[in-house]
């Protein structure tokens, strides 16, 4: 099975974020970056499918130079080769604009399966995979926890709300967006990291994949969230704060 995995580099979950001076996005200098977690699960699923059925895993990511480090991490975990769409203005494109870039890069590869995470941890639009399917003319399923290859194509397990699931059967080629938690993520081995350095990483300029259309949805401004409640912060040492909290829960909230 030839599988393309679309991954995104996002700010590390624990990295402190600051709003940039123009209030359009966050300050990216000195930020730590990581592979979007649902995309890491998509990669894991691809690697396991390859181990079972053979084939090739190609990693695809769009963004500036720095994205290369996340791509190398995917190669170190076992992907065979990678394509990086060099794109300095990813944030200025909407979900459709980004998906168009990815779709154009995927088309010449003619994969059997395209996998990606169900959403990104930065913008959280949760649309790229579904739009990709539409642009590529392929069937899709979202929030997938488990993938099984059948004679007719795929049988996947899809998560529904409130603890329900369903299985979906579909022909190949297809696009799936992966939910976190279906597999255990692997770590890159030392050997893998070494090998990754010799694997093919092809750079394609965004401009070669078509002209960017004007976005239909634009992020006008970002800000700190509005508080929904006024939180009483209990300060002091751990012991003092704990004692103050118990007092509040007993006397004020009356829940003890």
């Amino acid at each position: 099975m030839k599988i393309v995995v679309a991954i995104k580099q996002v700010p590390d979950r624990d990295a402190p974020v600051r709003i940039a001076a123009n209030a359009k996005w966050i300050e990216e200098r000195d930020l730590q970056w990581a592979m979007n977690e649902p995309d890491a699960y998509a990669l894991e699923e691809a690697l396991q499918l390859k181990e079972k059925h053979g084939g090739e895993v190609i990693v695809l990511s769009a963004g500036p130079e720095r994205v290369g480090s996340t791509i190398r991490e995917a190669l170190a975990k076992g992907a065979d080769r990678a394509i990086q769409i060099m794109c300095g203005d990813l944030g200025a494109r909407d979900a459709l604009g980004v998906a168009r870039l990815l779709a154009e890069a995927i088309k010449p590869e003619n994969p059997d399966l395209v996998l990606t995470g169900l959403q990104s941890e930065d913008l959280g639009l949760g649309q790229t995979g579904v739009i990709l399917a539409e642009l590529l003319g392929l069937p899709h399923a979202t929030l997938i926890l488990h993938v099984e290859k059948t004679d007719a194509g795929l049988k996947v397990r899809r998560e529904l709300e409130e603890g329900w699931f369903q299985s979906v059967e579909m022909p190949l080629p297809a696009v799936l967006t992966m939910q976190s938690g279906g597999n255990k993520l692997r770590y890159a081995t030392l050997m893998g990291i070494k090998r990754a350095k010799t694997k093919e990483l092809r750079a394609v300029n965004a401009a070669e994949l078509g002209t960017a259309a004007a976005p239909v949805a634009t992020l006008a401004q970002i800000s700190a969230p509005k508080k929904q409640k006024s939180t009483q912060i209990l300060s002091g040492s751990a012991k003092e704060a704990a004692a103050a909290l118990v007092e509040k829960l007993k006397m004020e909230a009356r829940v003890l």
Partner: protein
Amino acid sequence: MSVLLVLEESGGKIKRASWETLAAALKLGPAQDVTAVVIGAQTETLAAEAATKGIGKVVRVEHPLLAHYTADGFCLALHDLIQSQNGTKCVAFPHTYQVRDYAPALACKFGQVLIGDVIAIEDGPLFTRQLLQGRLTGTYRHSGAGPCFVSVQAGAFRTDTPETQGNAEPAPIELFTPTLDAAQIRTKPSEPFRESAQTVDLGSAQRIVSVGRGIKEEANMPMIAALASALDAELAASRPICDSGWMPLERQVGSSGQTVAPKLYLAVGISGAIQHLVGMKGSQCIVAINKDPDAPIFEVADYGIVGDLFEVVPALTEAVKAARQ
């Protein structure tokens, strides 16, 4: 602004989230400009329910191939419908798993994107949604001629206003039959199922102690159990903890787990991504213990302790034990 409101049902009743979306749609225009859409193989009862809500009209999008949800079926049927409704400026959905599965593809057919998971709508219109797992919010603007596709986060808009309660005069109901062919539906879904019988009903718990990524290792879990035991509380967790197998899946709180509303919800080491918040923000009293003062969990907390949970939790367990003696 004329709005198509796509309602979602569950078990033959229109979901509450659909009415919250109506509340959101009323920020864009008067109720008379709202057309509610029900979709399925048999939609008569749903349409009758929708017609009482004081809106302009109801359209039944009906076809035998829409008996079970498929992305292909819903996309094609709604594409047909939107094209038939001249002058639609906005198409609004509740932000459910089902909508996430097909609405981006539907929007794409019109060269549009979905402005998804919206929590507020202001004049402009400007659509507010959360970024970076709730650490920031962003306002989005739609431009261009095509209809604006929007989905609305569960719980973000109130349905207890008179406008969404409905009135006596039922709205006119139209039937729309989309052109669908079985060959166009490429996926075959099964009936929904549950993993195993649910043995824990967190929904009826009075007190819940819930733990998140901040706990770092499975070896640290007994510390949380001790606090829960002192408080006589049920144990729960955020998704990553259940994904790691440190807590059974049935104790997961959030959009993919249970929705709870206890008297006391104590969140330990949970940053408060929206997927978690939707499952617990209805709790009477929320306490958050987290090392990050900017963690979104503090936006919904009544009481907070900013600090190292490995120091705070044992101290709290002792304090609770002393107080309950």
